[in-house]
């Protein structure tokens, strides 16, 4: 793995909410999240709605303050920064939002939208001439025409709008871009264009992505490593191929099995259809959070929360799963390379 740029350790975030059915008012959205993101790497973050993906993204954007745990970005804790240093840190982590129709101000031109971050970060491009030149450059980088700067968002299609959102995120030359479901609002034919663009930009600029998505096919295509979230915890993480081909956590296996596949060979596959839905994060199950929907759950799962275990990855990369009874091999793979990593 490339050198870690961003390291997250034991991150917790609790929200205080109005009373739930059980009288609980504390919602643990993040419950001890640990992750690393390398330079120029794409980390895929998957999980169902309500699992805490967006809270994690917001915390990394410093829109939320964590209750516990640390974030280390190139050796410094951004939550300890003030003033100019904080401003500089904010410049380096940017975000692209899911809905390109809601995330662009309809009253601003595309050029103004892209240039707006420089109103805060004035030193970056001090003269208006520089700013205009940079807007044109950014528009070309994302596959739009320089003359598009004068148009308003309504004049663009969904895919073009998302390109504007990407250009805005790039305007501050960030090191990390958090992509929160960047293609799920787009039509398939346009989705491929935007995925290609993101890939090209990463090659060119060496920027790291945290790619949040519920679409496993897309994550498999873009991510170097993948982290699977369930009720505020990362329950499995590892190299994308490793996790997809040899999922160790039953939830990961179920998630993959549930997602429909474009396979028309006619071969019927055995699908794991989970019963029930995500429990409320207000009243998470005791012990292992997944036990209420897990077909492998036993008594110990209700009593003891599983610690992350190192699963054996064929190529020696780190593969962690939080399960008392990790799966050996779901798809009955032949090459059981159980050699210790």
């Amino acid at each position: 793995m490339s050198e870690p740029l961003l390291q997250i350790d034991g991150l917790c975030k609790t929200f205080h909410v109005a009373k739930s059915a059980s009288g609980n008012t504390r919602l643990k959205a993040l419950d001890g999240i640990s992750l690393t993101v390398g330079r120029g790497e794409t980390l895929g973050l998957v999980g169902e709605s309500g699992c805490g993906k967006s809270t994690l993204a917001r915390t990394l954007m410093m829109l939320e303050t964590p209750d516990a745990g640390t974030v280390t970005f190139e050796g410094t804790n951004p939550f300890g920064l003030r003033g100019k240093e904080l401003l500089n840190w904010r410049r380096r982590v940017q975000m692209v939002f899911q809905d390109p129709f809601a995330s662009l101000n309809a009253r601003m031109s595309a050029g103004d939208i892209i240039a707006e971050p420089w109103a805060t970060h004035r030193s970056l491009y001090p003269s208006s001439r520089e700013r205009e030149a940079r807007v044109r450059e950014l528009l070309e980088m994302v596959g739009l025409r320089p003359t598009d700067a004068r148009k308003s968002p309504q004049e663009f299609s969904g895919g073009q709008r998302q390109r504007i959102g990407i250009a805005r995120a790039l305007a501050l030359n960030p090191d990390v871009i958090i992509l929160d479901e960047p293609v799920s609002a787009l039509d398939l034919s346009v989705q491929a264009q935007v995925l290609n663009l993101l890939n090209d930009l990463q090659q060119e600029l060496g920027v790291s992505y945290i790619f949040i998505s519920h679409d496993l096919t897309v994550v498999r295509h873009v991510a170097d490593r993948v982290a699977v979230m369930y009720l505020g915890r990362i329950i499995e993480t590892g190299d994308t191929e490793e996790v997809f081909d040899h999922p160790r956590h039953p939830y990961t296996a179920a998630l993959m099995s549930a997602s429909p596949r474009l396979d028309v060979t006619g071969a019927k596959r055995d699908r794991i259809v989970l019963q029930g839905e995500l429990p409320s994060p207000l009243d998470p199950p005791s012990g292992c959070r997944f036990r209420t929907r897990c077909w492998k759950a036993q008594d110990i799962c209700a009593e003891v929360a599983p610690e992350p275990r190192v699963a054996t990855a064929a190529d020696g990369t780190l593969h962690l799963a939080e399960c008392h009874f990790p799966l050996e091999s779901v798809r009955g793979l032949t090459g059981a390379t159980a050699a210790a990593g």
Partner: protein
Amino acid sequence: MKTAAQTVLTGQSRARDVVLSVRDLAVDIRTHRGTVRAVNGVGFEARAGETLALLGESGCGKSMTAKALAGIMDPVCDLAGGEIVLNGTDLAALTPKERLKFAGPELGIVFQDALTALNPVYPVGTQLGEAFRIHRGLSAKEAKAEAIELMKRVGIPEPESRVNSYPHQFSGGMRQRILIAMAVALNPRLLIADEPTTALDVTVQAQIMQLLRKLREEGQMAVVLITHDLAVVAEEADTVAVMYAGNVVESGPVSEVFNDPRHPYTKGLLESVPVHVERGAHLKSIAGSPPELHDIPSGCVYQSRCPLAQDICRAERPRLLPVNGSVAVVKSGAENDADNGLGADADLGGGDPAGNYAGTRPPRPGRVAACHFSKESNNV
């Protein structure tokens, strides 16, 4: 009524009753910029116990088609022509009042967004029982008992106590189940499901699809599944009609259309999905975006994005015509059939298409594409 069922499907000799037959359906929308045609000559058949998928991207007219079938179009939309034959009755020829009798007993519809489709101020039991009160004349008490039965049928736990709950007290997946229960309450012959799982998480989506399959089998319903998700089509549907800019551009059995697409748009869509592509490798994508409804070109609707487009595509709109299947594809499901690089001048429309080239099969029933170059489109 076995006559319509004699058509042979997908090589298997299983023939099922045609429940719904749509021909030349056209829908106009009146806008401040003039009238536009959102659905243009769409036709397909749905059979009992089978799922037909209407596949297309946003704005292609698939939801408009669904609304036209159900007779619930927006006031600015007009049915501009065509037939919607459901069990022998042409719904398009009926008055709105006459059509009401069909909504429920003959035809049910499931919408995408269950929270907006359910009425927030009535308990779900009241809404579930409505069909029984209106169509069967049951009392409120009897209807409630039926509602509880329905909730059991669609897998809602503790129906006796939850029948009095309001929609907001249910999770997204449960709301979708309630919506499905409403649609199948009177055991309709046809179920239209308009993006029934798009708003749901994948694990819940799998549950809902399982439920729809179960209900389809139990009631031998014909299901029209409207979706933009190719993988859902591959897993759930028997036949597929691919829509683009208000037109069906290709249709046929799913396995054949997806293994051997004969319209460049279908092929482009299939290639846009990042499967069987090396991680991070460049995806093939379709350049540009669909035409505005105000601005549909004469000639082929797909011409502006098509890698095969030639003069004839700009001059003449291709009709949906039977396409030849190639033997190579049947053998291996391979992407390209090398032995199919045949003369471009052979006109599919004229004469006997089967005689045009060797090594291919005669046109199969129900396998059609609207492309001047449908023979070449798999070799793009």
